[in-house]
């Protein structure tokens, strides 16, 4: 692996872009005026009212449905997509039918 290949590999190219945009950000800071934080400039936006940041609650019941569905589809896709062409592909159709039925079960339950 030569230097050019190494430079184009994903982690290195990501770091290069990261460095570039960090420099661009810094340069933007040189051009922009200094932030002067008078008044309520640093307050979080809340439509002009004094509003404390509320604690966040996420409903996990619905989340589990979605997450289950998500996981199922990903596994299914990985299995189906690696099926070689030929007679074995018919097995894929049986597998997909099962997936289809289970997705339908999830949907109708909701």
């Amino acid at each position: 692996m030569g230097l050019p290949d190494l430079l184009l590999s994903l982690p290195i190219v990501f770091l290069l872009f990261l460095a570039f945009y960090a420099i661009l950000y810094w340069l933007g800071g040189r051009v922009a005026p200094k932030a002067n934080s008078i008044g309520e400039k640093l307050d979080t936006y809340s439509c002009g009212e004094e509003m404390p940041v509320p604690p966040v609650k996420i409903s996990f019941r619905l989340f589990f449905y979605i997450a289950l569905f998500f996981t199922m589809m990903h596994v299914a896709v990985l299995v189906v997509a690696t099926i070689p062409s030929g007679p074995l592909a018919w097995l894929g159709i049986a597998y997909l039918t099962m997936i289809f039925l289970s997705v339908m079960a999830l949907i109708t339950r909701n």
Partner: protein
Amino acid sequence: MREPAGRSGKFRGRSGSVRRRAEGLAVRVRIIGEKTMLAGERRGRKPWNDHLRGVTMDLGTTVFYILVYPGLLFLFSYATFCEWVDRKVYARLQNRFGPLYTGPQGILQPLADFIKLMSKEDIVPREADAVMFTALPIVILAVVCSAAMFLPIGGFVTDAVSSHSFPGDLIVMVFLLTIPTLIFFLAGWYSSSSFSVIGGTRVITMLFGYEVPLLLAVLSPAILANSWRLADIARFYQTQPVLLLPNLIGFVVALIALQAKLERVPFDIPHAETEIVGGTFVEYSGKKLAFFRLAIDIEMVVGSGLIATVFLGGFPGGFLPGLVFFLVKTLLIVILLSIVRAIFSRIRIDQVISFSWRYLVPLSIVQIFIVIFLKGLAG
């Protein structure tokens, strides 16, 4: 010599001696170079100058790839151009003119917006996590740009960059395009404002809706082409363009999913201005907002590039024809997305989820059925 010669006698004498010394040095360097070359040739090896030139040329090409095409410069200019096209089409469909004043037909307006935002003062809200708040806009740009390096644009799949294209880069691409969504969520979360937190949770909720159909739709041409490598998929459909037709359903599903991924109308729920003022980006302003907007534009380019690669047969024919194909096909997709943006209105978050579960996912499963059926027939 910054001092113009001849202004004073004292300097004229000194510059003359410096020049003599430099000439002497140059002669000596030339002699050393020739001696080394001779030594190399005598031993029957390639002259090291040639070897060095090869390495620097490879390195030059790599730097060109990263900095110019399809790297930073191309992405920046083409993303701003796409934003202009998008705004123009959107405006014309609403019987407006859109950007007009900056540059011919307002083509420089997105650039002007970027520069304007960059020159604003930099504000971090008191409640927000300063480090994450500042880092996220930079990371998201780096992510979308690295995703763009996977696009098999003409001339890019050569020996010099073969390490960047590997079997399975389709999956890597799809998952790299998921990271911006997670970054939107984190941006909303670390802003610690009620509006942005609601926006962030909406981002994640929507991700569960469209991610599955997108992955399924993008994989079906890959299954037919029997490869998960973007360049191979594109090459397969270039040799057999007829096989693009069975993937039509997948193409439509992928377009809708891309629209949702880019959070554009009718899927702009995470930053619905009329409900949660700006969603994830409420607290963002100045440079950070400029970075986010640019990242979304580049994501649009990369996403449409991915769909063009997989569903429209890629970008054949070397450097220049490949570039032309890339521009034409991605612009087509961008215009389609703009039309969708113009003719629909925002739908609710639960409607997005049920729409993608009830229609998009079954449609993409049907698409995979068709493809596997074809494969079964072929086998």
